[in-house]
């Protein structure tokens, strides 16, 4: 699905590349988490995957980046929209404002794609049901809570049926309740399969719960890559400034006091933690 080979990207006027020789292959349907300290290049990866680097930010690039059959840096944003969906942090900024109800807001992207009305209606209804927004369909998107608004933003992108969904810290500006709402949707997407998902997320417990794979960024490079369970339990995450899940922290603390044998692997999910402490 995603094939990136020795990809480098420089923002305009920068000597240091924000992405520095990225090699990455993500198979179709995989749910891939991305972690890393601030300024590591996670957002830039999202922009590269969706074509905003270079088409929106300009700057220069090298290497290969393909999503499906599409050569992303050699396509236009118009061609990429709808094939690759991008969701941002701030929910208010993502509401177009050009439509007056949640239903119409979700239809906005489909209208821009020039779909027939019947098809727009079908997809909007399908998406409203999937994201559990039916009750809010006639409300103004501006009259919603942050979490609800972010769900509308995700729905608006999903309705365009992208092959790849990229989310850049979609919960970092939400309260705990909004976070929960968004993760419920992501959990559903992960369980449903089909859509390839790349999710940048600091809340590691959630990544552990449903990511298939986690890659770790540092200074524009991929430094760790593997199954979510393996990477999130890796001690190097601490040194990189990414942190650990609460389960891992608790287990490591207990293990240090030698109550539990060193050979037992550290947990990253609630289930694993229960087993670990038994």
């Amino acid at each position, binding site marked *: 699905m995603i094939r990136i080979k020795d990809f480098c990207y420089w923002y305009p006027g920068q000597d240091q590349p924000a992405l520095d020789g990225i090699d990455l292959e993500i198979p179709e349907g995989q749910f891939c988490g991305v972690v890393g300290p601030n300024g590591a290049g996670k957002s830039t990866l999202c922009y590269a995957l969706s074509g905003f680097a270079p088409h*929106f930010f300009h700057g220069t690039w090298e290497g290969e980046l393909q999503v499906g059959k599409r050569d992303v840096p050699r396509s236009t944003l118009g061609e990429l*929209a709808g094939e690759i969906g991008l969701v941002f942090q701030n929910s208010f900024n993502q509401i177009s*404002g050009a439509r007056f109800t949640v239903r119409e807001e979700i239809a906005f992207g489909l209208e821009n794609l020039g779909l027939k009305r019947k098809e727009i209606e079908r997809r909007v209804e399908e998406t409203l049901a999937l994201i559990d927004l039916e009750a809010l369909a006639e409300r103004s998107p501006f009259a919603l809570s942050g979490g609800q608004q972010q769900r509308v933003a995700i729905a608006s992108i999903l309705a365009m049926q992208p092959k790849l969904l990229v989310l850049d810290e979609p919960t970092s500006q939400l309260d705990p309740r909004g976070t929960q709402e968004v993760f419920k949707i992501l959990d559903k997407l992960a369980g449903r399969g089909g859509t390839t998902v790349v999710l940048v997320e600091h809340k590691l417990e959630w990544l552990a719960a449903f990511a298939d794979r986690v890659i770790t960024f540092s200074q524009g490079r991929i430094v760790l890559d593997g199954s979510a369970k393996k990477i999130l339990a890796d001690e190097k995450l601490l040194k990189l400034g990414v942190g650990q899940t609460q389960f891992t922290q608790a287990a490591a603390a207990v293990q240090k006091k030698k109550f539990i044998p060193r050979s037992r692997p550290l947990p990253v999910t609630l289930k694993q933690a229960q087993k670990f402490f038994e």
Partner: protein
Amino acid sequence: MHGTLFVSGNSGLHRLHPLTKLALTFLFLVFAATLPNLLWLLAAFVILLVPMSAWGGLLRPFLRSCLVVITPFVISLSIIQGFFTPGETPLFHLAGFVLTGEGLLAGLTVASRILMALGGALLLMLSTRPDMLMLALTRSGLPGSLAYVVLTSIQIFPRFQERAQVILEAQQARGLEIKVNIFKRLRLLVPLMGPLVLSSIVDVEERAMALEARAFSRPGRKTSLLALADSPGQHLARWGLLLLMLALIGWSIWRAISS
């Protein structure tokens, strides 16, 4: 609807095609400019605009909006034209100035022209969803990006008002002194408005990206979920209204030349 005058409803007026209503608005504007005197203008308002608003079930909000808009004009015009237009019939003396009947009539005539023109615009806005009007205009060639600018700013300015309110309250909680002299008050504006303006400008980048992600700049035809009902009759009526406007303008030019 947030930030607009629109009052929802399902009346015949609501269901008219937006361009038909826009044509009527322009007709009322032409009436406002061309009808000869106060009597004609008030008659046109009472015979045309008032029943139309009632047809739309909008009589009360229409009259209320008209009153809010026209009252300051009536007051200012009665005073300014009334006292400062020379005339034969003094009505009232005040500090050496004379309110003349001619002046008052002239003032009220201008006010009724304004009422006619703005009343037409208010009726359009009360009965038409802005997005429907913009959709109709984009179908007739208005660039979609302009429709976006109008609709989005209508929807987000109330959010900015809320933010401004929050900033004001926060400053007041910190003991902002409002009763300081004017220069200190001027200096206060920067810390109050700067952050609001700055953060909104910084947000524009993400806003633009979110738009691109929704295929905003994709070339080619765009479609719409909303349906606009039109009819051959209305199409014809719009042409008729256009002709009527031209005739009225021609008539008033002819009158001006021949007098």
